[in-house]
């Protein structure tokens, strides 16, 4: 039994899963609050990566310190993604709160197309190299061949983000308000919660996590492209559903499960059918647990 291989695949899956998790969190939070599959979420992730690249390039040309560049680029990327998320919600989803669900879905799709092409036209269709913002840490060198510095940072960041989010949801007033709004919007409004503000906050937080994911994965892979949000978005959405959409631990769990499934399947069987297997796995899980792994099984009221 080749343990080293197994470990490599395990860690690879963990990294993959972490990236999916950062995006899936945004999906699941938005869905929990307004029951909308935010197709444009993948594009927010992509915009985060692009913004970081732009800021990093400009600062780099100005000759700033490397650490300063990383921090500024990431922070600005997060701010901008959050702003985009906020704006998208106000333009494309808020007017459709009373409308049939499918209309909001189409609006989301339209927004996704719009953002993709907006970045394509404003920037370029080429793949742009992304500088590795995460330096190779010296103290980690001996272990670098098992897990690179980038991967380590990704894992730690995802863990931290998840802890912070759980803290936000469980222990803060805003978190409580979010949970209340997710359960019953009308009731939440009646007890004095500003529903609009909470929904906007949800979008902002979700988009911020996606931006973090965007910056990290861009550093890890080394290049970005206007189309990267679409595929990552679909995978993250599958992960969120697998874990139970609407549940934050579910999103992370689903993402990790998806990451491991793909990694092990590629490693031991074949990379060709990797995605097929991932989807089949999803179907199997949903057959046995129709609301996802950690989803609440909804009792239908008559």
């Amino acid at each position, binding site marked *: 039994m080749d343990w080293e291989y197994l470990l490599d695949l395990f860690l690879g899956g963990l990294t993959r899963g972490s990236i999916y998790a950062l995006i899936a969190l945004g999906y699941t939070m938005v*869905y929990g609050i307004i029951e909308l599959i935010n197709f444009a979420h993948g594009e927010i992730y992509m915009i985060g990566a692009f913004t970081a690249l732009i800021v990093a390039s400009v600062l780099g040309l100005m000759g700033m310190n490397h650490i300063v560049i990383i921090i500024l680029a990431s922070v600005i990327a997060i701010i901008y993604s959050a*702003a985009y998320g906020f*704006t998208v919600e106000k*333009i494309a989803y808020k*007017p459709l709160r009373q409308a049939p669900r*499918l209309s909001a879905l189409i609006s989301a799709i339209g927004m996704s197309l719009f953002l993709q092409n907006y970045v394509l*036209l404003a920037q370029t269709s080429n793949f742009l190299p992304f500088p590795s913002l995460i330096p190779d840490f010296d103290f980690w060198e001996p272990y670098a061949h098992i897990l690179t510095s980038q991967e380590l940072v990704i894992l730690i960041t995802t863990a931290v983000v998840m802890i912070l989010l759980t803290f936000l949801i469980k222990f803060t007033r805003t978190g409580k308000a979010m949970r209340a709004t997710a359960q019953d919007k009308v009731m939440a409004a009646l007890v004095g919660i500003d529903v609009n503000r909470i929904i906007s906050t949800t979008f902002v937080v979700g988009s911020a996590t996606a931006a973090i994911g965007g910056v990290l994965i861009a550093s890890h892979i080394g290049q970005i492209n206007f189309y990267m949000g679409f595929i990552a978005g679909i995978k993250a959405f599958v992960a969120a559903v697998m874990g139970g*959409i609407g549940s934050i631990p579910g999103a992370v769990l689903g993402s990790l499960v998806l990451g491991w499934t793909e990694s092990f399947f590629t490693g031991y069987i074949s990379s060709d*059918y990797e995605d097929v297997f991932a989807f089949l796995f999803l179907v199997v899980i949903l057959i046995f647990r129709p609301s996802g792994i950690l989803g609440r099984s909804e009792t239908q009221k008559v």
Partner: protein
Amino acid sequence: MFSFNEIKKSLAASVWLMFLTFPILVIRVNTVENVVEWRWKNMVYAGAAAFIISFLANFLVKRKEAGNKNEKDKGNKETLFISQRLLNDKRFFFPALVVVTIFILSFPFLFSMYQTSIMSTALIYVMLGLGLNIVIGLAGLLDLGYVAFYAVGAYSYALLNHHFGITFWVALPIGGVLGAIFGIILGYPVLRLRGDYLAIVTLGFGEIIRLVLENWNAFSFGPSGISNIPRPDLFGIDLSLQANINFIYYILIGLVIFTIFVVNRLQNSRIGRAWIALREDEIACQAMGIDKAKTKLMAFALGATWAGMGGVVFAAKTTFINPASFTIWESVMILCIVVLGGMGSVIGVIVGAMVLILLPEYLRAFSEYRMLIFGTMLVTMMVFRPGGIIPDIRKKYTFEEKDK
């Protein structure tokens, strides 16, 4: 006329948008050549555009809300959309029908080969839209993997022709039947799923079919696709390109009419009403004694049949197919046609297909901005008319109180 408040709001929107688009629009980065380009003009454009658009949007939204209020105040009178009103008027209906029929029949001779060709493409999508309408519009099952059945139809013709020399006309019904079978295969595992879980699983199925076609070379020739698929023949006579394109157009007109006829009949039949009941309230539907499983499977199967047939025509029309034509985006497009056109209404789907397929072709003049405009249009349409261009008017039986 325009209050200061509105101007203030639009200014705020304009400033916000300038801030928002600053990095991406103004700074162009090329990390391959390590250049950074500053385009300040864009910021001005963005600001100006934002101001105008937000002004317009606020104006239109106010009018829409005023209109809604008026409706509520006027009570329960049926507000029929203008086209329905016209259609109900017998004096208008028949002459219009005659004019439209003549127009449709003479289309290929009035317009160039290119126009006929894209009209044919639009007609295929009308068929697809009507099929998906059964699943989503009537039965309320959110199917995001509809393209799988389309692929099944296309590949069935291509492969049957390649291996057994089966001609178009024989393949057409076979494509439909195969589509239905796959519809049932898809429907079976998802019977228990609801709402968005159903959506993601159907999306998964769409992808699975595409990926299998892409990777199983021995069966489907993989990404290189199948080429030299014969066009439909007229009793064995070989037609020139122009004549063939016209021929396909007429075949499609026939198929579309057939589809509309069948769908209309289905809508008003027992199974149609069962679907609508399913869409409205699953539990009540079950309580009324309708077999949920059978109804759902019928919806999937019948919906998929049209996709299968559409696929066969598609293969015959483009003469070359490969898995890249059957991605998630296709499913999304067909979904947009159904929703944009107006879920449940046949005319709505037709209009939706025409707009969504023909518009990108006509917007070729704006080639670079095509998809951008398309995306904007989707959002705008949904925000201002969430019911679709032509929403479905259901038969309502109302009882009015005689005395007050």
